[in-house]
């Protein structure tokens, strides 16, 4: 169902500019039109300006220029309360529900008893499968997102903005969320769906807007993935690289959502290696020393060895494209992505015969991810065994190597990335098909 033919769009943003106080221009004249009963994808690399744009729609960020029309009427959205009055609700990237309360209690607490009634009516009428009676902290992340969507609708929202809802979901959870959104679309609700995974955007959305460097690179119907890729990224470098799909028994990839036994697996690989074993823990902040320079952040890791720390730091900064004024910059001066690439780089470069990387590209954009993958292969080529954990199936396939799925403490037989059956991996990740 497409809705382009309708005369008056539900929401229209025209020529939005966002300039932050530090001079960063996050949006350079972004326009977007949302029709009733539409799921509109908003895609782009990290830093493309997606969040900034929807923050304007939600009244969090004041645009420097541009207009917003709601059902044809020019409207100023000054605050989230304002946005909600106009039927717009945003589900932020990170969970905002109170973890110890059930979904129902969360809704009751923040939106009142009336909202609870509305949610019940929705669930009944549309036959939505949702668990509202379990404390949120014990639910899968996909279920939590579903509750957040329902909460948005309970406040009377007609338009729900979802900022990267799927970034930490398993494929089955994504399909589940997709089903919910499509059901709700049928009931007349509209969505702006932010993601940087194109396959799911193609699968879920009616139309898509591609942002690149704060500008609209494309807006219209959903086309083939390849074309969207090219629109989204500056170069095509990565598509080519990934199509090669290299294989080596020295690269072991463990695919699975965090908390399925990866810690134990990693610990096993961390012991029993002869040389220095590089290790990026799941939380990279526990592997760095804030307040110390980049050089000292290398030094602290291999303190008792005779190493040219400055030279090594410089090499890491260069080959991992870490943006820093110099190697004496305090590490907490770096942006999140640069910090992470630096830590990953340090561990990969220091590794002698083995390197254990837990979710090393989590939160990185495609370009950085591709860079890390290249360096991983460099390490493999110089004879270092790499143990690579990821939650993202697409990433596992792009990286190559021997893939095993990890689920509830079990590890599947490794298959090589070029022979991997995508559906089978998806099933295993979701707990299906284990003998």
């Amino acid at each position, binding site marked *: 169902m497409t809705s382009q033919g309708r005369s008056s769009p539900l929401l229209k943003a025209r020529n939005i500019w966002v300039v932050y106080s530090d001079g960063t221009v996050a949006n350079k004249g972004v326009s977007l039109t949302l029709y009733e009963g539409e799921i509109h994808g908003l895609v782009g690399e990290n830093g493309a300006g997606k969040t900034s744009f929807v923050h304007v729609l939600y009244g969090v960020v004041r645009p420097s220029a541009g207009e917003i029309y709601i059902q044809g009427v020019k409207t100023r959205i000054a605050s989230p309360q304002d946005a909600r009055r106009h039927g717009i609700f945003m589900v932020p990237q990170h969970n905002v529900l109170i973890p110890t309360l059930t979904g129902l209690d969360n809704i009751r607490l923040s939106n009142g008893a009336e909202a609870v009634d509305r949610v019940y009516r929705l669930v009944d009428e549309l036959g939505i499968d949702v668990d509202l009676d379990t404390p949120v902290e014990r639910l899968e992340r996909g279920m939590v997102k579903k509750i957040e969507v329902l909460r948005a609708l309970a406040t009377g929202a007609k338009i729900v903005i979802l900022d990267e809802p799927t970034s930490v979901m398993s494929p089955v959870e994504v399909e589940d969320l997709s089903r919910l959104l499509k059901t709700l679309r049928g009931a007349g609700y509209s969505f702006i769906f932010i993601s940087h995974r194109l396959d799911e955007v193609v699968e879920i959305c009616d139309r898509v807007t591609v942002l690149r460097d704060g500008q609209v690179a494309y807006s219209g119907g959903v086309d083939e993935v390849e074309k969207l890729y090219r629109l989204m990224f500056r170069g095509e470098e990565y598509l080519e690289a990934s199509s090669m799909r290299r294989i080596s028994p020295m690269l072991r990839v463990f695919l699975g959502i965090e908390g399925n036994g990866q810690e134990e697996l990693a610990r096993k690989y961390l012991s029993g290696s002869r040389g220095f074993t590089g290790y990026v823990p799941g939380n990279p902040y526990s*592997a760095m020393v*804030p*307040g110390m320079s980049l050089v000292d952040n290398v030094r*602290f890791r291999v*303190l008792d060895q005779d190493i040219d720390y400055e030279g090594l730091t410089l090499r890491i900064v260069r080959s991992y494209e870490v943006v820093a004024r110099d190697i*004496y910059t*305090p590490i*907490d001066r770096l942006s999140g992505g640069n910090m992470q690439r630096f830590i990953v780089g340090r561990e990969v470069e220091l590794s002698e015969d083995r390197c254990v990387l837990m979710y090393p590209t989590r939160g990185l954009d495609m370009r950085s991810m591709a860079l890390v993958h290249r360096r991983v292969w460099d390490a493999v080529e110089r004879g270092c065994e790499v143990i690579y954990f990821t939650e993202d199936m697409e990433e596992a396939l792009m990286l190559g190597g021997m893939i095993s799925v990890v689920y509830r403490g079990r590890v599947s037989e490794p298959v090589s990335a070029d022979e991997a059956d995508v559906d089978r991996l998806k099933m295993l990740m979701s707990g299906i098909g284990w003998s």
Partner: protein
Amino acid sequence: MELSPMQIYRGVATILAVSIAVAVYSGVIILYGGDPVEAYTKMFRNAFLDPYGLRETMRLASALGIISLGLSIVFRAGLWNIGAEGQYVLGGLAAGYVVYVLGLQQGGPLAPLLIGALTGGLYAAIPGVLRWRLGVNEVLTTLMLNYVALYLLYYVVYGVWRDPQTGFPVTPEIPGAYRLPEVGGFVGGLAIMLLIAPALYYLLFHTRYGFKLRVYGLNREAAEYAGYDRRAIIVGGLFISGLLAGLAGAGDFLGSYYRLMPRFSSGLGYTAIIVALLAYNHPLIVPIASILFAGFLYGSYTLAIVADIPTEATYLMTGLLLAMLVSTQYMERWIGWLARRL
């Protein structure tokens, strides 16, 4: 060098804390009908320009500085030694033991000085071991041990070591042979502080041990990740700080009081926390901070005498400063966490 968000936060927080404390102190002066500018000028003159005052200021500064130097080491490791007061007292007691009980004459002040320091160090190592082995919070243990040391002091001054001749609760003056000589017209402790400061700077910034201490203080998880020995950091760090507090106690006993009395414990160990924090736990800034702070303390005491500003105002200010500086240090972890979220 570029400043990290944490360092910027630290600078702003310190300036703010000092400003608030000065404002409150000025408020008290006004409340008592004084003129703050005039009062501060008088304080400065009394503490630094008057020859007698300067000697007193330096006497105070040396003890304060030596204790703070030790604290700057453990604080860098993110460990809270709140027990410098007790370690200082015990240092004095141990030195007293050498003089009054053992009567060890060789080496003059050297033996009591070293034994005092060592005792202070071992006394601080107890909370260190408890922390390392059992995870007991060192804030509580170091604080509680202050009372143990304090009552031990009362026990000897009111009891076994009391001067039989006067009958007052003070110990007899020590013989001249034990006395720490003056250096350059000031108490010997000042020279000791000025010698120790660069040594600790070297330890902290140019040795592997110092580096590990700092890493541990900045991110414990990272220290564990890199496989550092917790015992050396926790027990060692507390030992060093106790060693210096004990040295300061022994130094005051041998170099300026020449006896023990109930007021031997006068809160220096707590004030030294302020000095260390004001100096950003930097061994080369500590001497300056301790001289300035000692000047303020001595100056405010004289003010109490000549201008009727009560000494309670001084305690109010130091207490306030301590509370603010400690809480900003605690908040530092949150700031780091926040900075990563933004």
